[in-house]
């Protein structure tokens, strides 16, 4: 399985995401320009030009008509997928760290960092009609976060609640009708870098700096499984077709210059979701992996790294033949 290398970014990849059908792969990077690629052959379809700072988060709605991005230039932008034109722009007080469309894509959530006396805040906005006026529109809900900032976010599949992962390893569930916190657990000891749903949105996987990825129940935030590695985990994803999870990470980007690729352990690692046993590794990146994503058909997956490359891996037939005995 020779991966397709997507070489279009000039700096570290921050997030990659497939659209619902999986034909397109969206990517953001610290080089200010999110890209969209054909996942099949790695050809670049287009670029979203407009940000002035590192783009930290991206999402695409279920119909692949709108794309959104939050960046370090204190803006949150919504784009038209087909044309790549910016259709909405919201200025924020600090950098936008996470963002996500709701299930219906009628709403979106984004959170800002705590910076210069500015608290971390979560905004929920109406995205049914996006035009220039969106910048003046009041958000539906605005929740200041007192303690640790939000570092990752997920929206449930009935548009009722949001799950946020925090800097201190906490996971909190919010009720959107009341704007209150329903539930909160602290199973990680360090920053949660990423959270991703399983296919039906009943479980999610977290990736934490504390060297583990964990599987949680979405309803009561019950810890189900733990996947241990020796390095900070930056991203984790669940296969839509098998009981497999892929975990990516590696030595902190800050320490990478002092370590060789071998010590860094920049591999994607495959675990069995239920048995928590590692069964495969994919090498290739020469910096930590910042984001991993499964193709919605489960037949390929991609990883984006600090090295600026995105690698699209199509599984060999042996992957599909491999079975755990039980």
């Amino acid at each position: 399985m020779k991966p397709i290398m997507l070489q279009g970014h000039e700096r570290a990849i921050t997030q990659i995401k497939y659209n619902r059908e999986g034909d397109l792969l969206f990517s953001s990077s610290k080089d200010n320009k999110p890209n969209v690629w054909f996942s099949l052959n790695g050809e670049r379809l287009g670029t979203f030009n407009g940000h002035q700072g590192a783009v930290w988060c991206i999402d695409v709605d279920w119909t692949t008509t709108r794309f959104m991005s939050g960046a370090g230039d204190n803006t949150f932008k919504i784009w038209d997928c087909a044309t790549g034109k910016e259709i909405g722009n919201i200025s924020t007080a600090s950098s936008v760290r996470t963002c996500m469309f709701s299930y219906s894509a009628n709403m979106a959530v984004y959170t800002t960092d705590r910076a210069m006396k500015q608290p971390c805040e979560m905004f929920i906005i109406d995205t049914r009609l996006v035009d220039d006026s969106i910048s003046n529109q009041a958000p539906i809900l605005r929740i200041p976060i007192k303690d640790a900032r939000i570092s990752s976010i997920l929206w449930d599949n009935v548009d009722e609640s949001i799950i946020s992962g925090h800097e201190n390893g906490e996971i909190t569930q919010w009720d959107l009708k009341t704007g209150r916190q329903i539930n909160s657990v602290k199973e990680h000891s360090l920053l949660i870098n990423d959270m991703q749903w399983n296919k039906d949105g009943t479980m999610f996987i977290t990736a934490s700096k504390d060297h583990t990825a964990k599987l949680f129940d979405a309803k009561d935030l019950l810890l189900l499984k733990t996947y241990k590695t020796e390095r900070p985990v930056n991203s984790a994803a669940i296969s839509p077709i098998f009981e497999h999870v892929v975990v990516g990470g590696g030595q902190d980007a800050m320490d990478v210059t002092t370590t060789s690729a071998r010590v860094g352990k920049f591999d994607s690692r495959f675990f069995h979701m239920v048995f928590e046993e590692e069964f495969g590794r994919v090498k290739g990146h020469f910096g930590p992996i910042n984001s991993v994503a499964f193709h919605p058909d489960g037949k390929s997956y991609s990883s984006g790294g600090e090295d600026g490359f995105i690698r699209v891996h199509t599984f060999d037939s042996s992957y599909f033949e491999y079975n755990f005995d039980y």
Partner: protein
Amino acid sequence: MAKKKSDEKNNQDDDNTKNESDLSSNDEEPNFSDPEGFVDDISDEELVGDILKLKPKETDGVESVIVVDGVPQVGPSRIEKLKSVINKIFVKFGNIVNEYYPVNAEGHTKGYIFIEYSSPVHAAEAVKLTNNFKLDKQHTFQVNLFTDFSKYEQIPNKWEPPEPQPYEGQADLHYFMLEPDAYDQFAVVTAQGSSVQIWQNTQPDPTLVEQRSQWTQTYIKWSPLGTYLSTFHKMGIALWAGHNYAQYKKFAHPGVQFIDYSPCEKYLVTYSPQGDPHNPDQKRIIIWDIRTGLEKRSFNPEGPTAWPIFRWSHDDKYFARIGQNNDALQVYETPSFGLLEKKSIKINGIRDFNWSPTDNIVAYWVPEDKDVPASVTLLELPNRNEIRKKNLFNVADCKIHWQKSGDYLCVKVDRYSKVRKEKNETKYSGMYCNFEVFHMREKQIPVDSVECKEPIQAFAWEPVGSKFAMIHGESPNINVSFYEVRVGQAPILLKKLEKRACNHLFWSPGGQFVVLAGLGSNGGGSLEFVDTHDFLVMNTTDHFQMSDVEWDPTGRYVSTGVSFWKTKVDTGYWIWSFQGKILKRFNMEKFAQMLWRPRAPMLLGEEKQKEIKKNLKKYYPQFESKDRMRQSKASKELIEKRAALMEKFNEYRQERIKEYLDNKPRRLALRNHVDTDELDADTQNVEEEVVEFFIKEEVTIID
């Protein structure tokens, strides 16, 4: 002492109660007087026996007084001087509140004195440490507690034989050798001994035998035959043995940092480089008898202090060290612990020596001195026969390597072609290397020589057998050469493996197999498992940043470790089969040390061993089936475990999947009644889009 104190207290209490009863009788109200005609037939002993026992004795309150006998007898003129000398000795143990020097009519002291401390604890300490104290040649103190007098007064006239104590059997210290499958044990230490674990290397997964936190304060060491586990503490060494690792003995030696066992585990040498700050008289090296726990002899290091300072002969009979100024070899004998024949062996300029692992022969070397060439000498003990001497020229340094079976001795001689004296340093150039191989089992001990022009990285004998291996050359052209020594022949080069990434070599304790390893920061952690029977490289692999490689005592497994002492990341230990197949990886934070428990030598005679080797085919199926059973049992267990996990997980999932399906209408409502649950769920709404990709460009020239 504490007990005594409480006794005293009781005394007082009793007194109080007595007084109280006296008081109450004064009140006259109830009449307690005996009726008339009453005869008191109960003795006090019967009535208040327990209180009588506590009756104050003459010696009460003098527990803090000691009697020192053997003090010099001096006239009145020198009594002050004597007092100051005595004071100096005894003030160390506590505050002296009173002292008394009895004098005779002429004012001469009588040779004994009384000293009273402020506390009985100090008195006891003083007795313990100054009894038999040698003041000078004529005077040795005999120190007693004053209370001892009453103790000795009460010695009954008739001797009663002591009651025989029931014999408490010593726990079986060698139980670990009786493991039917010969599974070996190993100990794992994490940083500063915060946790020490003993594992048994059972197949397919090792099992934890014992785990204790704070078992040791620094590191641990097994005794050479594996009987004892030694742990290091601020106050000394503790040995643990037997089934439950019960404490076997303690050896108090404050500040101990290094220990060394004699090869038969009879004696233990402890070395405290700083000594005891509270007791400067404490010697820095102590030799103990392990079984009795008694100190046999103590030394202060002199001469070169490369540990172990003392080296033991194979049978624990002798131990030796190089004397001060490198001018003698001091050989001591056991159990007397005196110098052999009361004098050391004069060898001018002796630099290094080593005992043969199987015979009482010492090999030592002396460097060139003016017109006398450097030489290596084999000395037989105790008769001090020089059985072989070999002169060598242009010697910079020598390393003495005995083969473990004692059949051969190899002296690695670093030689120079040019020498320059600069100030006080000698600088050698044009270095090359000679290996002088002594055939110990042949008549007159013939010596062969192998020369190597390249720098030598490592050298090692095959523990049993006749091969030796060396790593030579400079990076990146590092080669490994294997030689074989045969009777009446010079060593033959068997094989040269070229361009290897290694700097250390580790022979299997059973011979034949060798692991070539790259240790340390520039070694890269490469591992190569070689079968020297046909020089087949069985596996080439690595354990990145590995700092240790160790064979298990039977030569079936190899462990490699990344120690927290060397690197901070990815510490842990891995276990490999002798063929280089990875069996287990234990990655743990702050892993420090992993040590296999040594085994005592096999009791089977050589012939029996040969017979077993010959009939190995017979036993083979037996073990094979055992292994297979174990494997299948393990995989069965694993499968059962997985099945249980899966079942539990599925049970949990059922509920969630039901909820998910129940929620379907809501999801549909949110997405304009388009079913997006599956990729191809919404077949009506599919719009086919044709995307053309540019695949290849070909230029065909048409004429």
